[in-house]
């Protein structure tokens, strides 16, 4: 009984596998987002989060509606907005770096957060 369950987990790749993979990726992104001190590493973690969300969208598009593929359309929108977000975030970061000469987020205390 248990052996069959393990066998089906390994050999029957389904929607749940992709959801759990995306959840692992999302958790790695959350850990990096909160616990890192370098601001570029925070941007990298945000990109990892967006990729985890994209995997979810495309998994549901594959297993849910293969006719209209609305999940893939939405994933493309997410990609374009992620590119915009990185460009804008790095512009803000570069102008911030000119003032502070530091990449440590714990030095960015101008807003008294």
């Amino acid at each position, binding site marked *: 009984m248990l052996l069959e369950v393990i066998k089906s987990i390994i050999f029957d790749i389904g929607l749940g596998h992709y959801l759990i993979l995306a959840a692992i990726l999302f958790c790695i992104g959350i850990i990096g987002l909160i616990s890192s001190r370098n601001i570029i590493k925070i941007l990298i973690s945000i990109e990892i989060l967006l*990729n985890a969300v994209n995997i979810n969208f495309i998994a549901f598009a594959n297993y849910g509606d293969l006719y209209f593929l609305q999940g893939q359309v939405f994933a493309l929108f997410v990609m374009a907005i992620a590119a915009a977000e990185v460009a804008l975030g*790095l512009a803000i970061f570069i102008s911030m770096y000119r003032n502070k000469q530091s990449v440590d987020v714990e030095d960015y205390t101008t807003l008294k957060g």
Partner: protein
Amino acid sequence: MDLIYTAFFWIISFLLIVFALGAVFAPRIVYSLVSMVFAFLSVAGIFVLLNADFVAVSQVIIYAVGITIILLFAIMLTGKNVDKKLWIAFAPRTLVSFGIAFMFFLSVVYCSLENIIKPVFNIQPISEEAAVTLIFSGTTEILGRAFLTKYVLPFEILSILLLSVILGSAVIAKKNDKNLVNPTTKENR
């Protein structure tokens, strides 16, 4: 066929998790950038496994090349040898982040057990007709029709957004000599 699919799924997801961990926990920022590139390529492989060829190619073009070059420029503009002591914050919020991530993971694992998710999202097996359409024409035609008929308004608004982002990032990153004050010496540069 099925065995090959399974093997590719496990190999690609293993590589993806390893490279994502490397991107977050690498001691230097350049290593984590290189690891991020490979993680994004692995995500493109996952998209190929999920019948999303157009999205996979877009992933390679946008993420693995475009965003990486932007980040590389940022690293080159700010490079100093202080990366190592900025590795990770030894603060209470690190523990909080691990806790949040663990709780989230447990909840997703609970929700993705099949008998919970099947009735909610109406998951059905892939029909023969749709599979034949995908094999012969790919997803590009479906996505193009969707973008130019049903989703044409968000598509056009997205182009306006990208234009304003280009202008805005150029304005923000521009060097403005009058307004820049060095906070340590209180003088204009």
